[in-house]
């Protein structure tokens, strides 16, 4: 459950992060690929070397989807419906990877925001990313 204060904090954060979505996304993905080598198995069709175009494009896509969900957290299931279907029936990414990616997103945010990644923002962001991952996996079974 996100409090009003937490939603405000998230809104402010996403406003700041959306313009740099491709850098945050690429950073988070690269961190996940480095720390969880198994996660690379889903990307054999892309060039995921550091600095590659694919990494930036894909990273941007993911971060913007997460940012979009944050604009109306109460309607997360409706907003994510198409992505739910995609992940459940086509991509079939093991949902444990959502947790790995969320962790690397938090690291990327800490690196990017430094001291501004306060404890309360971290808490709100962690809660939001957990909710996002749970909704994303809803159609799996």
């Amino acid at each position, binding site marked *: 459950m996100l409090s009003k204060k937490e939603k405000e904090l998230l809104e402010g954060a996403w406003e700041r992060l959306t313009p740099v979505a491709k850098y945050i996304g690429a950073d988070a993905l690269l961190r996940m690929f480095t*720390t969880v080598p198994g996660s690379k198995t889903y990307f054999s069709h892309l060039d995921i070397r550091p600095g590659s175009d694919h990494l930036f494009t894909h990273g941007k896509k993911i971060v913007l989807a997460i940012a979009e969900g944050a604009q109306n957290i109460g309607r997360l299931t409706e907003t994510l419906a198409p992505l739910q279907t995609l992940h459940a029936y086509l991509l079939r990414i093991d949902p444990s990877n959502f947790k790995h990616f969320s962790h690397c997103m938090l*690291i990327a945010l*800490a690196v990017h925001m430094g001291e501004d*990644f306060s404890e309360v923002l*971290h808490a709100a962001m962690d809660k939001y990313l957990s909710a996002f991952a749970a909704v994303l996996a809803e159609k799996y079974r």
Partner: protein
Amino acid sequence: MVVWTDQERAAISGIMGGLVYEDDGPKALCRCLIVYPWTQRYFGAFGNLYNAEAIKNNPQIAAHGTKILHGLDRALKNMDSIKETYAELSILHSEKLHVDPDNFKLLADCLTIVIAAKMGSSFNPDIQASWQKFLSVVVSALGRQYH
């Protein structure tokens, strides 16, 4: 036995060498208590933990955070025998403190976030991987003697 490459050892000692235990320890513990409030259950005797500000200003929490990093130092100095180094501490956390070992990972993650915020982009993916490997060995050793 855990095998460490020279690169990993360098990354880990580099990070530990850059930490200010009296500052980063408290920051990591406070962050854990704020981000994962259920971990406060172990600190009932530590006074006011009502909100983030109270936690961050609590001197007992600060002292404990510092103590934790000094404890981590022991792993750094005994990297080839972390399991043995922490056997006693593991028993303490199990039999006396009754800490759920899943919580060790939560604190470890918060420490990693504190380090990432402090180091910025020099905390690159390879260094992150080495550091997380170190912490996972520590976490595993601390949970090892539970039964």
